[in-house]
C-alpha cells in the first residue's frame, strides 16, 4: 500500500517536473547557470574534437565559444556534450543542450517537424565519396555494386540512396553509429567506399593509417550540405543571439577586425560599422538583451570567422580561398546581414 502510494507521488512529481522544462527563456537559463551547454559531435577534427589538453576544438566548437563569450563574457564557460547523429535533436528539444553545433544539415523536414530552428551556416559542405587510392576508381559513376560505409541516420544516407537510384546503380549500405566507426569499417575492408560530407572525409582521412595520401576523394559533390548551429523553436530571442553572434564573426572578418587588432579599433574605430561591432556606438547588445561588449568579447576571445577557419578547418587540409566558404567579397557565398 505504502509502496504504491510512493510510486504515485513520484509519477505525479515527475509529471510536474516535465511540465516545467518547456517554458523559460534560454538566455535567462544560461545566465543563471553561468555556463553554456553545447551539443557537438566531439569526434570530427576541424569541427569538434578534443585537443591534447582535452579542450574541444573546431569550427563548430568555436561557435559555442563565441556565444558563451557574447552572453557570459567568457568563451571558456562552455560545457561540450558529445552527441551522436541519432541523439542530437532529442537532446536539443529536451533542453539537454542550449545550442546544437554539430555539423548539422539544414533541411525542410528538420526545420518544420522537429521543433527546432536553424540559425545560419558556419560551414557550407557537400557530400562526396572516398575510396582507397589503390582501387583506381576515378569517378562516383564507377561505384555500381559497391558496399558503402555511412553514418546511420544522416542526410548523407538519403542523398546516397537518391544518387544511386537516379543513376540506376546498386549499392549495399553498411551503417555505423559514429563517424569514427565508419572510418574503422572502411579501413578494415567492411566496405569499398566511405561517404560523408567532404570536409569530414578530409578530416577522417587524417586519422587513417594510410593517411590522406593513401585515399582518393572522388571529384563529384552529390548534395548541398549547409551546416550550422541549431536552437529550439519558440525562443526567438535566443535564436537571434546565436545567429547574430555568428554574423558578428563574419562581419568582423569583412571589416578587418581580428582578435589582435580589436583593442586598437575599439580605441579609435576606423568607421561607424566597426564602431557598432566593437560596441562603442549604438545599442546592439542591449537590443539582443546582452551587454554592449557582446560582439567585442566574441571576436576578442574567439577571433573572426577567418581566424577560426584557419586554425580549425584549414588544419585538416581544406583550403578556403575561392571556395564557397570564402567571404562574398572574395568570390564565396559567406554573406552576413549588417550589424546596425
Amino acid at each position, binding site marked *: *500500500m505504502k509502496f*504504491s*502510494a510512493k*510510486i*504515485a*507521488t*513520484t*509519477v*505525479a512529481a*515527475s*509529471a510536474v517536473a*516535465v*511540465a516545467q*522544462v*518547456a517554458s523559460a527563456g534560454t538566455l535567462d537559463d544560461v545566465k543563471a547557470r553561468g555556463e553554456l551547454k553545447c551539443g557537438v559531435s566531439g569526434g570530427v577534427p576541424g569541427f569538434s574534437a578534443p585537443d591534447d589538453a582535452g579542450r574541444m576544438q573546431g569550427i563548430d566548437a568555436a561557435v559555442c565559444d563565441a556565444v558563451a563569450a557574447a552572453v557570459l563574457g567568457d568563451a571558456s564557460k562552455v560545457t561540450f556534450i558529445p552527441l551522436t*547523429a*541519432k541523439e542530437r*535533436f*532529442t537532446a536539443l*528539444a529536451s533542453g539537454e543542450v542550449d545550442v546544437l553545433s554539430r555539423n548539422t544539415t539544414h533541411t525542410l*523536414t*528538420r526545420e518544420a*517537424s*522537429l*521543433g527546432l530552428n536553424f540559425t545560419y551556416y558556419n560551414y557550407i559542405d557537400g557530400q562526396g565519396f572516398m575510396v582507397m587510392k589503390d582501387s583506381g576508381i576515378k569517378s562516383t559513376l564507377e*561505384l*555500381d*555494386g*559497391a*558496399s558503402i*560505409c555511412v553514418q*546511420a*541516420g*544522416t542526410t548523407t*544516407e*538519403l542523398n*546516397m*540512396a*537518391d544518387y*544511386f*537510384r537516379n543513376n540506376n546503380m546498386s*549499392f*549495399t*549500405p*553498411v*551503417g*555505423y*553509429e559514429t563517424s569514427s*566507426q565508419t572510418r*574503422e*569499417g572502411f579501413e*578494415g*575492408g*567492411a566496405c*569499398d567506399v566511405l561517404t560523408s560530407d567532404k570536409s569530414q572525409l578530409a578530416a577522417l582521412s587524417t586519422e587513417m593509417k594510410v593517411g590522406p595520401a593513401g585515399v582518393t576523394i572522388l571529384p563529384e559533390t552529390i548534395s548541398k550540405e549547409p551546416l550550422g548551429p541549431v536552437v*529550439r*523553436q*519558440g525562443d526567438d530571442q535566443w535564436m537571434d543571439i546565436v545567429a547574430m553572434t555568428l554574423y558578428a564573426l563574419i562581419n568582423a572578418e569583412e571589416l578587418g577586425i581580428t582578435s589582435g587588432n580589436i583593442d586598437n579599433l575599439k580605441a579609435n574605430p576606423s568607421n561607424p560599422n566597426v564602431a557598432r561591432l566593437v560596441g562603442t556606438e549604438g545599442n546592439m547588445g542591449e537590443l539582443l538583451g546582452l551587454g554592449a561588449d557582446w560582439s567585442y568579447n566574441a571576436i576578442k576571445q574567439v577571433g573572426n570567422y577567418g581566424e577560426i577557419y584557419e586554425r580549425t578547418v584549414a588544419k585538416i587540409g581544406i583550403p578556403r580561398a575561392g571556395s564557397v566558404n570564402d567571404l562574398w567579397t572574395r568570390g564565396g557565398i559567406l554573406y552576413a546581414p549588417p550589424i546596425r
Partner: protein
Amino acid sequence: MTERTRIPLHRDPKFRALVIQILALAFVVYGFYSLFQTTVDNLVARGIQTGTSFFDEVAPFQIGFSPFFDYKLGESTYIDVFFVGIQNTILVAVLGIVAATLLGFFIGVVRLSPNWLISRGALAYIEIFRNVPLLLQIMFWNFAIFLPSLPAPKNSIEMGAFYLNARGFHTPLPVIEDSTGFALWMAMLAVLCVGLIVFARRAKVRFQETGQQLPVVWISLGAIIGGGYLLYLIAGSPLIFDEPVLGRFNFKGGGQLPLPLFSLWFALTLYTAAFIAENVRAGIQSVSHGQTEASHALGLSRKDTVRLVTIPQALRVIIPPTISQYLNLTKNSSLAVAVGYEELVAVWAGITLNQTGQALVIIGMTVAVYECLSLFTSFVLNWYNKRIQLTER
C-alpha cells in the same frame, strides 16, 4: 454476524483497505495520465509533430540485408523497414539461442570433467566471457579480429562454391527449377517420413515387449540423408544452385551471411554460452549422486544414466534461469548498431527515428516488439518447463 454489521463503515478494516487501494490506484492512473498529457502538450507547444502517418511514406534509404522480405529502395515504406528490422532481430536471436544453448551445454558438462585441465579450461572460458562487457566483445571480434584477418573480396578464401571475405560468407543458394519435380520430391519425402514414424513406433513396441533395442536415431538419420538424396535424383534433380559470382566490388548472387551478422552472432553466442554453462553446471550438481549410483545399480549404462536419470532432473533446475538468458540474448542483439547489422534498433529506432523525428511512436513500437518477443519466448519455455517438472500426485 449481526454484531459485525453494526461496526461503523470507517472502522471496517476491509472497507478501509478497499478505499485506500482505490485511491492509490486512482492516484497512479492520474500520475500516468498527466505524464502522458504533459508530453503531448509539450510536443504540440514545441511544434513537434507526432503520429503514425509516416508509416506509408516511402523510406528514402537503402537496407543492405533482408533475407526474407524484399526491400526495394524507392518502393518500400517506413513500415516495411519496421518489419525488416524485426525479421533481422529475430534471425540473430534464433541463431544465437541455438548456438549458445549447444555451446553452453557443452561447456557446462565439460566444466564438471574429472580432468583438471579440461575443467579449468572451461572455468577460464566462463570467467573471461561473462566478465567482459558485451559491447566490447562485439566490437573486438568485428573490428580487431574478423575485419583485419579476413581478405578483401578479390582475394576471398575459396571453399568449393563457398567464399569467405571481409564482407561475409557467400554460399550457393538452391533455386527451384522444376516445380513439378520439386513437388514430387517433397511428396516422396513425406512418405519416407511417415514410414520412419511407423518404424519408430514398432521399434518402441518391440523394445517394451522384448527389451531389444534398435538404433532408431541412426537408422532414421541415414534414411533421411541417403534416401532423401536418392529420391532427389529420382525426381530429376529439381533444384539448381545460384552460385555467387565475383563482381567488380563483391560477390553477387547466391546467399550471403554478412560479416556484421556473423560478428554479432559469434559474440552473443560466446557471451550467453558462458552464463548457460553455469546454469547447466548448477543443474547437474543439483542432482544428488545417489541417483547416479542407484541407476548404475539397476544396470543402466553410463550413457543411459546421463540421458534418462541425470539430465531430466537437471533440466528442472537449468531451464528457468536459462529462459532469462534467452531473453537477455534477444535484447542484447540491439547492440548491433556498433558493427552495422541492420536489426530493429538500428534501422527503426535509429535510422527511421532520425529521419522522421517521431520519437514517441517509434520508441513505443520498439519497446512493444521486445516486450512481445520476450513474453513469447518465456511463454514457450515456461510451457516446456511445466511439462518436464516433477508431476506430484
